[in-house]
């Protein structure tokens, strides 16, 4: 799966401009989906399987977009001012590099001389090597992503955009491995999650499923002196109990736990105090639906160097495949 993950994280797709990822995913799922379409928002929706006895209409969602920056001004001397597209933390900016959709690359600097404190985003700029406004190849409204090479540390993988291309990879791999399902699966590769789960909202409406599962990363509490959280890298898929946007349907949580236990897949229970996923939109779509989340534990979320454990990723596929292979008995 490492190659799959790498091809996905190496592709550019800031929120609202996911088209390159969409094209890649289309190629990757060729032959393993029964029907593929791109909706008005840009969500790629792939149907797999038809309803059989004990089956449900299930929406699975992994978001294609990654966080990035938007140019807000080019100053007299050719420096590009910017704002965030999705949740960017100023602390990760300085010295970082970005690439605009037109291929122009630049480095991030700041007005402040202080090297001890993270400057506010509006005190930072992107230097694309331009001499003045006229010669600057970037204009207001242009979108950029963070650039940082993918690194394979053996058991751990590091890259930008693992949030949520690793979820995309889990969904694709599961679609591949899933030979038989009683369910009608709508695999949604969603857009604009990082700016408020907007793609999932409209996809959930269109799909009109009975059950929704999001596949996304979650933070961990296993690094020095970090905020306490009972999720760690390498301890298996995290089954979400709640986050700041939703409470998972307890029936879904129980079903996931029981399935993991039966299959001998390690798992952890997750409570995330800041952040949410596509599942929160699914839960309140139309007349409501049962919703839950399988999270891939991830360190340094929303930095250009996010880290996941490869075994966790494989176990997520195993769990999802097990969940989808059999009829569902609850609700």
């Amino acid at each position, binding site marked *: 799966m490492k190659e799959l993950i790498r091809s996905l994280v190496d592709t550019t797709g800031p*929120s*609202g*401009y996911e088209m390159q990822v969409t094209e890649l995913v289309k190629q990757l799922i060729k032959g393993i989906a029964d029907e593929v*379409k*791109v*909706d*008005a*928002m840009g*969500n790629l929706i792939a149907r797999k399987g038809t309803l059989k006895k004990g089956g449900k209409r299930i929406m699975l969602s992994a978001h294609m977009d990654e966080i990035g920056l*938007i*140019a*807000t*001004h080019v*100053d*007299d001397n050719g420096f590009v*001012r910017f*704002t965030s*597209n999705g949740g960017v933390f100023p602390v990760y900016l300085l010295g970082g590099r970005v690439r605009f959709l037109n291929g122009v690359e630049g480095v991030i600097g700041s007005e402040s001389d202080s090297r001890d404190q993270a400057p506010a985003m*509006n005190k930072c700029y992107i230097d694309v090597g331009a001499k003045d406004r006229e010669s600057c190849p970037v*204009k*207001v*409204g242009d979108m950029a992503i963070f650039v940082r090479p993918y690194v394979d540390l053996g058991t751990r993988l590091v890259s930008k955009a693992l949030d949520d291309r690793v979820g995309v990879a889990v969904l694709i791999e599961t679609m591949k491995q899933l030979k038989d399902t009683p369910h009608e699966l709508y695999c949604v590769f969603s857009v*604009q999650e990082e*700016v*408020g789960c*907007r*793609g999932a*909202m*409209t*996809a959930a*409406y*269109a799909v009109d499923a009975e059950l929704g599962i999001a596949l996304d990363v979650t933070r961990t509490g296993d690094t020095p002196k970090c905020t306490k959280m009972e999720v760690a890298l390498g301890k298996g898929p995290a089954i979400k109990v709640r986050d700041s946007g939703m409470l998972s349907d307890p029936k879904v949580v129980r079903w996931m736990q029981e399935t993991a236990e039966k299959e001998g897949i390690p798992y952890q229970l997750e409570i995330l105090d800041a952040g949410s996923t596509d599942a929160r939109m699914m839960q309140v779509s139309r007349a409501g639906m049962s919703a839950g989340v399988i999270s891939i534990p991830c360190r340094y979320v929303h930095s250009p160097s996010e880290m996941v454990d490869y075994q966790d990723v494989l176990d997520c596929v195993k769990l999802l495949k097990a969940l989808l292979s059999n009829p569902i008995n609850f609700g």
Partner: protein
Amino acid sequence: MTTKNMAPLIEKEQIDLLERLSNACGILSDVGEIRKIVLESIKPYCDDVHIDALGNVLAIRKAQQPDALRVMVAAHMDEVGFMVVEKEEGGLFRMVAVGGIDSRYLPGKPVLAGKEHVPGVIGAKPIHLMKKDEMNNTMELEDLRLDVGPDGGDKVKPGDPVYFATKFQQVGPSLMGKALDDRLGVVSLISLIQHAPANIELLAAFTVQEEIGLRGARVAAYAFNPDLAIVMDSTPSHDLPTWDGSENIYYNTKLDAGPAIYVADTGTLSDPRLLQRLFKIASENEIPYQIRQPGKGGTDAGSIHRQRAGIPSVSISVPGRYAHSPVMISRFNDWKNTLTLVHTALAEMPKNLLQRN
């Protein structure tokens, strides 16, 4: 009505309408005065008009050809203001702000209250009676009172709206008045209805509750279920000099630079296909435009584009200085160009622009 397919012009009639609408009061759902003017202006031109459960005016003007694109255009009727919440002795009342108003704008301003437009003031302590350093403190709304005069207390009651008593003026190239956000859009939309392009089905939404979370637009978009949506609003211009003469990089938009097209704000990433289309139309027709600085803020597009299975949307605003204050200033030319751009873009909107695959 022979001007059907011509671009709508802004003439005395439109300026007069803007004046009436700017001087009228419409806060949140309490937009009866605005709605009345809208209804009388559009009824003769529409195939269907109704008021929904929230108070939005939803109007349809059909295309003059089959299979036309169904385009929603939205402008919000509500403005920021205050609500009277508590009566005190001697014609004094407590108020709560409805929408984002910087309380530094309030002291010493004349206001009007209630359906009868009762005149009143927001007073302030005489400078002579102040303690040392008191002038460094902001006067917060909870410390200020609406005063309608010692014997006027019976004319106002809790629940009444309060708004700035600003009279609209046209001064040189500028339009000055309160609530140009978004009465400019309202008049634009009325003109669009009156001069609707023949190739599209125009779904006009005059919305409520924009200033508190884009709520009217949400149900309007659900009801219309359009192919695409354009929002016509007003957006701030902070194009003033900086204190130290350094380059102003936080202007948001600039007056006289043309219609402000949105790429990204808090609520919306505009549909890239619509953006490219607008840029193209503007260039071909030599209509000036600017890109509003991406960042905070938002328009009705924020709720429209997420309805049902997704509605490609874009916003185009008339720039205006001093939004949410007693007096805004916009330029006549920016307004004119905004209307021309939207009208031209609609008239030349290819049917297959948004097709996928």
